[in-house]
Every structure is written in structure tokens, then in C-alpha cells.
């Protein structure tokens, strides 16, 4: 292939463009056509190469030029990422609006982070220090965070000079002895994982403030959770709630091929919500990536990688990052669409055969790691899956399950009954119980594990009993089973169900979950005692104390009402026992 500076387009088919005339490497970023649209080389043929273009190609014609930037698809990382909202290739949407109005047009370049903003940089290394890759050279204050400025991967050496002071991200703040300039920002290729020292076994949960997840199906910091569900089951509300209330330091929210109005909701809401951990607006710990379903499909494919790369960057500063990807199915479909235009041999349901590899590579970038600079940080990945027809046997769900240790199965039937979170407690699982056992023992309750198992046992028993109830009605069950059903109902309504839109119930601290669990057991134990003492089940079921449990979860400062509820339950049962003595 000739090595001219300009190549030439020979074929255009939607986002897929074929060109020839210059030498390119796989994954090089190229500029396509007169408008210099951004594209990436995805296939090289004998006499030509194929580009996926991140913008709309209407009007692009054969013969127009193609130039090679010789750089892989990268994001710019450095101070100034937090609070931003990007499209799928890290162009700030705010700047795109200034440049091209309310509608997304083409051919506009924008820096990923503000190059004019001045930061107060404090160097933490000095001349003569030997720096490894990703070494921390100093800090700046980014909102509430001490942002650690790092060397890029693959750069190391002795410091020749470094200075503190006020700089923009593009100013040179120092030099290494080999002449390499040090800046506050650098470019990080998105398709390769950022390097780290070693992976560690996760031992702490990502506390979400959502009872059903925290109690029954916890995900570890550094873990992977899959959240599949048919439409209307609440995937997005779940993702948003976890983004809001989890105890992550940083949240990266990738809206991948989803609704525009939902992103607007996040944008309108987040700046006004206060992070319970830091007391600062939530937007200040959040990076949003919004590539809605009608934005270019190739950029949708890229958006997931852009998200996880930014997540890894904050992880390397020793922070716990939660990445929400909504929805990975749209990402897989984008891959399918590009693959089909390349006329590749399809695998299951038309998805490319490399779907499972891509999914595994992506989720494996999550984890708790010791970073190259000696920090300990984590990326937790929570991927929503939108299975076609709500059928979990489809390829994206199945391939995700092979790498995800948490399976949060959303259920249309529960959603239809307005049981939210509509996660099916019998089908879902978490494989982190084991590794998180010590944490819960220390931070929630010493009997935590046993209690959770017991609750689950009651729910399972309910499921078995319900089959009988549907045939003969609950009145014909033995009395102790009627009580079990009632306890299960309390678990479902007061523990599992949670109102994401209630100003108190939307966030439930671990200790409060534990107190509610104890209430359930209190009811069960005193009910059993009453039953043994000869009180008929129908009298026990008619007690009012159980309804007060609902009020406990709706109170911010619930200690008073908690002890009142306990008293009500106990005294009601005692009275019944007296009555039947």
C-alpha cells in the first residue's frame, strides 16, 4: 500500500466506510471525508481497509480523502472529568450544544476536558525522584476530591524538574530526565485495560442503600453484577438509584443507546441531590456518558469503553468507582450491526461470534486492584441487559452471566404488580456472600449470614406453599404455615419492596435494614409463641402491629417508632396469650 498522507474512500454503507491508499494499523483513528469525520480502522484487507465512522455519513462519497492520525481511540484523562456529560467518544455535550445548537451535527471536535481552566497544582515529588508508570506526581482539588495527577502508563523515569502552581491541563508542569514532558492530563487508549500491579480479592460490599440488593444479593466493591430485565421492569430506575445512593466514591454512568429523556432526568436531578456520604451534590462525583439510541451506532459501541477507561483512571487514584452501563444489550447490538455490515459470519441470533470474548474482556476490567502507584482502588461494573422478549436464554444475558457473579433478575410479573424493586428473589443470586461475610459480621450484625439465610428460607417455603394455596385457599393450611405465609408477606412488602421515589425510603442504610430484619423476626417469634400458647392463627393475623413496620421504613429518624412498633407487636401477642389462657 502506498504511503501517501491521504487515502481515498471507495465505498460507503451507513457507518461502514471502505478506503484505500494509505497504510493503517488496526484500531487507528482516521479522519474520513471532507468533513473529517472521526472513524476507527476495524478491518484490513489486501488492498483496502474498513473504517467504522462515529458520526452520520450521509452525503459522504467515494473519492473523498481519508487521513490517518496513527493514534488509537483514546480519552483524555485528568482533572475536570467530574460533573461532565459526554457523548460516546468523550465530546462534552455542553460544548457540542454551543458549537452546533440543539441537534447533534457532524464534524465538530471538542476537548474531553477543559483546557482553559486553571488548577492549583501541588507537586508531591521532587527533582531526582524515580517514578514508575502511573506514579502520582502531585494533586489538585477537583470539587471535594483530592485529584491525584499521575504519569501515563508506559512513562517512567527520573524527575528532572517539577513545579507547583497554577496551571491548565495542557501546561507543562515538569520534565523527566529523558525529556518527557509532564502534564496534568494525558491520553489513555480505551480498548486496552489500564495497567495495574495485581488484582485483589474483594472483601467489602458496594452498599447501595437498596435493601434487596444489600441484604440478599450484595455486590462487592470490584465485583460485577448483571441486571437483566424486560422493558418496564425497572432496570433504569435501579441503575439510577444505585448511582445515587451507593457508597462509591465516583460514579460513571453510561447511557448506551437508551432514552434521551432519561438522561435529561439524571441531568436535572443529580445536581440537586446530596450525596449522603460527602454531603456534596451528586453531580460532583459523577461522569455521565450519554449516547442515546438515535445517536451514531459506532459511537455507542465505543461509549462503554470510554466509560470504563475513565473509571480505571479514578481507580488508579485509590478510589472506589462504580460503573453503570445501561444497557449492554445496546452495545452488543451496535457490535452486531457493524459486524453484519462487514458481512462477518454470524453466531447466535446474528450476534458476532466474538460477542462473549468482548463481554468478558469488558467485565474483566472491573476489580479490586493494587495499582502501579501502590494505591488500592476498585471498579465495580453493573451492566443492565435488555433481553429480547424478556427471555434470559438469549446470548447477551447468557454470556454476561459467565463473567458476572451477581445476577439480579428483574421480573415483569413483579413489576406489573408494582412490586419494586422487581427483582425475583428466587432466581437471582450473588456469589459474594462468602467473601463479604466478615464485613457484614463486623458492620451489620454478628448473625447476619444466618439471618439472611433464614429469611430466604421463609421466602422459599412461601413459594412452595403458594402452589397449595392457589388450589385450596390459605384457610385450609395448618396454622403454623399460615403464620409462615404472613411472615413471608411482611418480608416481601417491608423488606424487599422499596420506594425509590420516597424521600426517606429511597436510601436505606445497612443498620436500618438490620433493624427491620430484627422486627420481622420479632413478629415471627412472638407469633409462634402465641400459636403455641393456643391462640388461633386468624387472631394473630388480625393484629395491627405488623402494619407499623411499614411506617418504620418511611421515617428518617426511626429509633422511636422502632421501639414503639416492637412494643406494639409484643404487647398485642401477650394480650392474645392472656385471652386464650
Amino acid at each position: 500500500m502506498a504511503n501517501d498522507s491521504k487515502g481515498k474512500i471507495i465505498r460507503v454503507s451507513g457507518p461502514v466506510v471502505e478506503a484505500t491508499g494509505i497504510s493503517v494499523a488496526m484500531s487507528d483513528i482516521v479522519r474520513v471525508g471532507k468533513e473529517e469525520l472521526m472513524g476507527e480502522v476495524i478491518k484490513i484487507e489486501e488492498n483496502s481497509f474498513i473504517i467504522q465512522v462515529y458520526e452520520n455519513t450521509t452525503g459522504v462519497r467515494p473519492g473523498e480523502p481519508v487521513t490517518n492520525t496513527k493514534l488509537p481511540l483514546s480519552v483524555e484523562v485528568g482533572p475536570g472529568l467530574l460533573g461532565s456529560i459526554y457523548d460516546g467518544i468523550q465530546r462534552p455535550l455542553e460544548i457540542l450544544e454551543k458549537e452546533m445548537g440543539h441537534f447533534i451535527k457532524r464534524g465538530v471536535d471538542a476537548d474531553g476536558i477543559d483546557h482553559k481552566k486553571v488548577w492549583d497544582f501541588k507537586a508531591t515529588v521532587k527533582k531526582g525522584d524515580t517514578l514508575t508508570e502511573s506514579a502520582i506526581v502531585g494533586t489538585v482539588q477537583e470539587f471535594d476530591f483530592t485529584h491525584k495527577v499521575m504519569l501515563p502508563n508506559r512513562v517512567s523515569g527520573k524527575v528532572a524538574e517539577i513545579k507547583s502552581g497554577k496551571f491548565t491541563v495542557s501546561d507543562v508542569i515538569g520534565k523527566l530526565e529523558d525529556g518527557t514532558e509532564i502534564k496534568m492530563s494525558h491520553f489513555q487508549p480505551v480498548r486496552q485495560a489500564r495497567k495495574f500491579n495485581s488484582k485483589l480479592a474483594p472483601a467489602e460490599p458496594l452498599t447501595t442503600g437498596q435493601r434487596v440488593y444489600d441484604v440478599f444479593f450484595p455486590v462487592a466493591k470490584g465485583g460485577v453484577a448483571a441486571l437483566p430485565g424486560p422493558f418496564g421492569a425497572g432496570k433504569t430506575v435501579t441503575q439510577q438509584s444505585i448511582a445515587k445512593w451507593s457508597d462509591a466514591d465516583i460514579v460513571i454512568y453510561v447511557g448506551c443507546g437508551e432514552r434521551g429523556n432519561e438522561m435529561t432526568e439524571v441531568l436535572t436531578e443529580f445536581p440537586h441531590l446530596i450525596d449522603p456520604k460527602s454531603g456534596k451534590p451528586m453531580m460532583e462525583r459523577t461522569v455521565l456518558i450519554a449516547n442515546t439510541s438515535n445517536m451514531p451506532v459506532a459511537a455507542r459501541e465505543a461509549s462503554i469503553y470510554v466509560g470504563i477507561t475513565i473509571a480505571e483512571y479514578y481507580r488508579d487514584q485509590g478510589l472506589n468507582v462504580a460503573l453503570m452501563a445501561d444497557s449492554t444489550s445496546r452495545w452488543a447490538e451496535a457490535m452486531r450491526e457493524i459486524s453484519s455490515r462487514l458481512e462477518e459470519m454470524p453466531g447466535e441470533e446474528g450476534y458476532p461470534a466474538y460477542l462473549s470474548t468482548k463481554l468478558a474482556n469488558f467485565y474483566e476490567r472491573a476489580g479490586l486492584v493494587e495499582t502501579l502507584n501502590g494505591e488500592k482502588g476498585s471498579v465495580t461494573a453493573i451492566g443492565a441487559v435488555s433481553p429480547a422478549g424478556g427471555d434470559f436464554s438469549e446470548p447477551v444475558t447468557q454470556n454476561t452471566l459467565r463473567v458476572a457473579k451477581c445476577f439480579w433478575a428483574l421480573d415483569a410479573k413483579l413489576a406489573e404488580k408494582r412490586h419494586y424493586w422487581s427483582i425475583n428473589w428466587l432466581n437471582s443470586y450473588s456469589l459474594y456472600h462468602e467473601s463479604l461475610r466478615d464485613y457484614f459480621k463486623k458492620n451489620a450484625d454478628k448473625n447476619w449470614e444466618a439471618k439472611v439465610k433464614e429469611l430466604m428460607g421463609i421466602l422459599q417455603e412461601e413459594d412452595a406453599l403458594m402452589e397449595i394455596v392457589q388450589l385450596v385457599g390459605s384457610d385450609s393450611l395448618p396454622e403454623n404455615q399460615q403464620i409462615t405465609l404472613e411472615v413471608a408477606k411482611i418480608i416481601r412488602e417491608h423488606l424487599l419492596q422499596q420506594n425509590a421515589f420516597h424521600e426517606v425510603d429511597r436510601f436505606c442504610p445497612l443498620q436500618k435494614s438490620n433493624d427491620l430484619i430484627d422486627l420481622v423476626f420479632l413478629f415471627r417469634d412472638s407469633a409462634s409463641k402465641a400459636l403455641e400458647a393456643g391462640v388461633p392463627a386468624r387472631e394473630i393475623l388480625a393484629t395491627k402491629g405488623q402494619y407499623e413496620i411499614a411506617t418504620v421504613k418511611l421515617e428518617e429518624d426511626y429509633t422511636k417508632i422502632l421501639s414503639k412498633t416492637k412494643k406494639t407487636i409484643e404487647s398485642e401477642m401477650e394480650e392474645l396469650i392472656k385471652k386464650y389462657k
Partner: protein
Amino acid sequence: MAVKKEYKTISRVAGPLVFVKKTHPVGYGELVELKINGEQKFGQVLETADDNVVVQLFEGTQGVDKDVTVKFLDEPLTIKLDDSIQGRVLSGIGKPLDNGPGLVGTKTEIGGAAINPYSRGLPDNFIQTGISSIDLMTTLVRGQKLPIFSGSGLTHNDLALQIARQAKVVGDDSEFLVVFAAMGITNEDALKFQRSFEESGAIDNAVLFINKADDPSVERLVTPRMALTAAEYFAFEKNKHVLVIMTDVTNYCESLREIGAAREEIPGRRGYPGYMYTDLAELYERAGMIKGKTGSVTQLPILTMPGDDKTHPIPDLTGYITEGQVQLGRELHRKNIYPSIDVLPSLSRLMGLGTGKGKTREDHKKVADQVFALYAEGKDLRGLVAIVGEEALSDRDKRKLNFAKIFEEKFLQQGLEEDREFIKTMDLAWEILGTIPREELVKIDNKLKDIYYKETKL
């Protein structure tokens, strides 16, 4: 290019596709004109390469032979827009069907750029449809896309027309406009639609695009884009609230599949193209509001679920993009209840944003939740009654059973011409709630019950 070159180099014709050889460099998506015995046909470039261009014809390839003249027009597909389009009846590709003049105004690309998510305004107020079940329980919000999932033989067309006639914004003097996009409907339905709009006078505040079942299927892909481009013009340049009703999306998707097959693409689920999600999103995502502008585009797409199957790719992909759905039920239809809206599987995701004090009424959401819960329980009990008989039920359950009945007969049931004001809908809801003892209405605060609750017997 000063002179637009003409070619007579068609090498292949397959379905709606024409393959043209040895052209000048042609732009992707460009408009193409074919001359067949003096008659014009239009098409669009689907793929362009050095030596071969694939053109998709809008009006069928009948009569196309290898000697037909092909001209590339160096511009994408457009529609001419100005205020005079209001009140017009047009074909699926914007030709007059009402004996009026051809369109005039600014040529506007119909492809439609995506709204920058950062520029979107948050939908926050409702549209009154005058249909009680929709207004109370699946409230339509300005800027929302809320499809109607129907089945063949159900009354979705009547419902669509009724909403088109009745829909309005309340408590706001901005203008309201309906854009109606019919895709692949029968001539009989087309006539009915047109007549309904004309007779009710609704046509003055409407634009109709009608693509009939016997029109070329490729045209069907253009119709909603024409309609939405017109809607965006009125919403974002003229600050009106525009409701776009699109029927039937199923026909649209069939065309999409047909063309995908003709292009010999690798099919996705059930033969529909793998990019159907993206393609539908390009339509549905054009609903919305823009920061700093008062107009809105609201969509009410209607689709018939093949075999009443909600998991079929068309309703499935639609449901993943749209903000809820209104589902029609065959069982209700058999009971002669119109509109046969099954509220249980129906949902409006944006309802919380567009309802409540200052928008609808402070008790709206709670009443809706309460009615929903009681109806769901009452309906569940019907199964039990079939086994054990009504006598075996407790009084409490009997009341719920009755509630489900009067909900369907008094609240849901509504005349074709009956336009219920929102307040009337709320009164009706409280009336049926009055059959339930006050303390059993657990989802409504006492404060609200003090104001509105009154015991009734129905």
C-alpha cells in the same frame, strides 16, 4: 456539480433495489430520480462505491428496465415546510391528496438529527386526551413517546381518532397541533381517517400523511420521517405542542424487513434486520422538548402485536425505547368495553413528572395507585370465584370484585364522542372508590380523603 449527470447503466434490479454501475462519486443517502416513460420515480442511495451504487426506490420498481435513466440529485430527501402545511392531507411522501397545491417553503432534511441530550428539556406537563383510563392511570406527558400496543381486530383506530380529536393542553394557551402519520393502512381506513378529521373540523389543527397499504412499501419508511420533520418544525420553530400519532408501526417494520431481505442482509430475530432497534429509535427519539423552547413533540405510535404477542420483536423493541405503553386487551374488547385499555400491563414512565399539584391535581398519583391496586386485586379474585363461587368470598373481597366490575363498566367504558375533562375523570374515580370503606384505601392520605372521599353505592 453544475450539470447533474444522467446514467443508463442499471445492472440489476431486485425488489425495491436498483444497482447502478459506473457513476461519478455519489454521496451516501443522496436522493435519486428515475425517468420511466416520462414518469418520475424517486429513490435514495443505500450504498455507494467506486463502481456501483445501490438505490432504494420509494415507489416500487415496476417498469424499471436496464434502459431507464438515473439521475443523482446531490441532496438528501427533504420536505418543504411552512405554515401552509397545516390542514393539509398528503401522501406518505408529501404529495397532495386533497386537491391542494404542492408544498412550498423551506426544504428540510427528513433524516432528523438527534437532539443533544444536554439540550433536552425535561417533560413536565400533561396532555389531556379526554380518555379517563389514560388521563388517570397512564398519563400522557408532553415530550413523551407512549405507544398503544394493540392487536388485529381491536379498536385502536377509533381510539387514535378520538385522541386526535380530543387531545389538548390544559391551563396553557399555547397552540396544539396533531400530525397524523398513517403507514400501510387500507384505503377504507384512510377514507375514514380523512373524513373523521374533516367532519370534526380537527383537520384545521392537523397535518395528515397517508401511506396506504397498496402504496410501495419503501414509501412507508419515509412517511413517519416526513411527519416528524413537520412536527419538529411546528414544535421547535413555531412553539406549538405537537402530538404525532403514527399508525401502524407494525406495517413500517414489515417494510423494513422486506427491504433488508432485498438487500440480502443477515437477518436478526424473526427475520427483522439487526438494526431495527436503531431505526425505530431514530423515529421515537424525535419526541421531546428542548431547553428554552415552549413547544413539544409528543408521540403516540400505534402498533398491532402479531398474534397478541408482546415479546414479538416489534412491540419488544418499541417497549425498550418508548416511555411506557398503553395496552389494549382482547378480553375487555369481547366484553364490549370501549376503549378496551388493559390498565394493568400499561404504564407511563413519565407520569410522575407531568402530574400532581399545579399540573393535574394533588391527589392524582395516589388515586391512580389506589384504583390500580383495587382493580388488580378484584381481577385476581375472578379466578378464585370461578372455582369456589362468589358466596365463599369475604365481604371485603366481594367489594373488590365489585370494584373491578364497576371500574370496567363505569370508569373505563366511554363513548366514542365522549370527551371527559380531567376533573370529570377524577370525580368518577372517587365515585367508584366510594364503594370501598374509607380505611381500606391505604394508598391515599387521610388529608386527601377528608377532601374528596364520599361513600357511594354502585
